[in-house]
């Protein structure tokens, strides 16, 4: 893929959004959703994997399934795609429980699943397994305010022609859950957003496009809104906008949906 230098020495790259979905699930629904994971995974996961998945992983699998289904790509193979995901601080509740048990019962009670399942890369590895994706799988950002880093990773992978498409995913708790997660019965929602993007035309047509602009002369336009999780969550509905997601005016993203 060639980037297109613009007159002022900046660059731009235009990509198609070919799938998108969002999900918001109350905490009370997650146990039931865990049992439904086999419905959403073309390549089956083992019971051990399913049992130990972080809650955000459950929602991101559901959201990805929705995106694939809605875009008519259920039979599509994603061999040459890649995936970049940004779970926000997975593992908080599991770690606090683990530390407490570790203090009283010792090292042997520590789950071997903490690092594989609760790290920044975990969701991307999971998605690559479930959908047979053999391009790169990466975690990026992973903290509130770093959501735009997923787009930087996407731009890099597509610019370098490493993949023909990408699944981008973000997930978090809203509101963020605390350490007493098991006891709290409030209205916490586990939320996920998925975008499928590709430079190629898609049989099902595009849902919109993303334009990346970068260079040293990008004008310092006012920032209408931070590219954070709430923005992405509403983008999946019907928002359009023009955002600066990078640093020092070198990176902007422009979304146009419904075209």
């Amino acid at each position, binding site marked *: 893929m*060639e*980037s297109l230098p613009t007159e002022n020495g900046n*660059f731009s790259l235009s990509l198609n959004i070919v799938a998108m979905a969002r999900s918001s699930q109350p905490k009370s629904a997650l146990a039931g959703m865990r049992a439904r994971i086999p419905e959403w995974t073309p*390549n089956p996961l083992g019971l051990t994997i399913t049992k130990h998945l972080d809650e955000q992983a459950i929602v991101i699998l559901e959201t990805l399934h929705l995106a694939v289904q809605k875009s008519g790509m259920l039979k599509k193979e994603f061999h040459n795609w*890649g995936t970049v995901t940004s779970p926000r*601080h997975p*593992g*908080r509740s599991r*770690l*606090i429980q*683990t*530390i407490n048990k*570790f203090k009283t019962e010792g*090292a*042997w009670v*520590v*789950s*071997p699943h*903490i*690092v*594989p399942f*609760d*790290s*920044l*890369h*975990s969701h991307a*590895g*999971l998605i*690559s*397994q479930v*959908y047979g*994706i*053999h*391009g*790169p*799988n*990466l*975690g*990026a950002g*992973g*903290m*509130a305010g*770093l959501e735009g*880093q997923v787009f*930087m*990773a996407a*731009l*890099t992978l597509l*610019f*370098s022609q*490493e993949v023909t498409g990408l699944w981008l995913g973000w997930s978090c708790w809203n509101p963020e859950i*605390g350490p007493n997660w098991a006891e709290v019965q409030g209205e916490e929602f586990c939320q996920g957003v998925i975008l499928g993007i590709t430079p190629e035309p898609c049989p099902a047509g595009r849902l919109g496009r993303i334009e990346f602009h*970068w*260079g*040293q002369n990008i004008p310092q336009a006012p920032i209408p809104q931070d590219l954070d999780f709430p923005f992405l969550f509403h983008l999946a509905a019907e928002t359009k906008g023009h955002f600066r997601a*990078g*640093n*020092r005016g*070198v*990176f902007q993203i422009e979304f146009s949906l419904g075209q």
Partner: protein
Amino acid sequence: MNRHEEPIWITGVGVCTPLGEDFDSTANALLNGKSQVRDINLFLTENHSTKFASFLTSIPNSASIPPDRFAQCTKQEQLALYCMDKALESAGLTGDLSKKTIGVAMGVGPDWLQAWERDYYAGGQAITQVGREARPGWDFAREILGVPGPCMQLSAACASGNQTLIFASHWLKMGLVDYCLAGSCAINVTPITLATFGNLRALSRRNETPKSASRPFDLKRDGFVLGEGGALLVLEKKTTAVRRGAKPFAEFLGGGNTSDAHHMVIPNPEAKFAEEAIRKSLSNSKVNPEEIDYINAHGTSTPVGDIGEAKAIQNAFGELAKTIPVSSTKSMTGHLLAAASAIEAVACLAALNRQAIPPTLNLEEPDPQCRLFHVANTAMEKKIDRVLSNSFGFGGSNSCVVFGKAR
């Protein structure tokens, strides 16, 4: 992508491991076959199945921050600050950096889990303070040093370091940055990290002889040794470096990525996509297999992983696999997880600069399922122009890169 193709040079190295606190001391230790694997004295290990690691007891102060303030930083912040500062200094990028576009591609692993854990033991409550998460150590360092360009923390598990190098090279080609810091810093030796990998049965249990525990490709290997440390490299285009008179450590020739899509933890035993990552790295680097003079293996010392990697190398190189020297420096550094391939990049630069290959320690009886041309126990002098570094991680992430003598 050929439009902006021009050589990418590595002009700065900041490294801190138990083996050394700069490029020369680290290179010397690796080529002399030194190991700092030892009993853990950072916390009690009596009920851990593994009681040793390669760990940092202290991190040298960075000149960019007063000692009293440095002492107040977390270990992760100190390590990132030291490595970033030294990398920039080594590249000759000092003084006011605000007008330069210097990016940061930082590989991370379970960093926030480890940060919460250390904070908890120190009496902090970061894990319970929802919405007030500590900034990543590297971001703190970036601010202190005034590094102003685009930044990203990314994770490909244990392949993260190589991935950051690939990203940095692309950002340079894209014109997104003029210089890029790439690598990873990992403070891994915590009670929970030791326990979780111990209970996964991924760690060696040679508690009586820690220095002999990391033995990649040896028949009697029984797991990896947890390690910690950091390495950041400065990458820039040759023209930029030449213009300002910067000297190269090496050229970054390119890399290749794939995913196994097989299992969250276990590598694909057929190693088909590890092999594919090797092939892609060579192809993207425009290097033929016979031009590779040395392979720095991922070589963790796990029974399954080493066999898979040997198969990947054999399949990618065919008959050449019998003649290309291979070693795993994890036998000396331990496995630094997200920072592993960043440290191994330094080992590759050492090989290129010293024209010698660091050995695989403790390789007494090579596993017949890992038939390669091993550099066992002592360094090998050799003319070295191009080096391949393999890195394979959880989630099936495979990332391989090629370095060469600077052209």
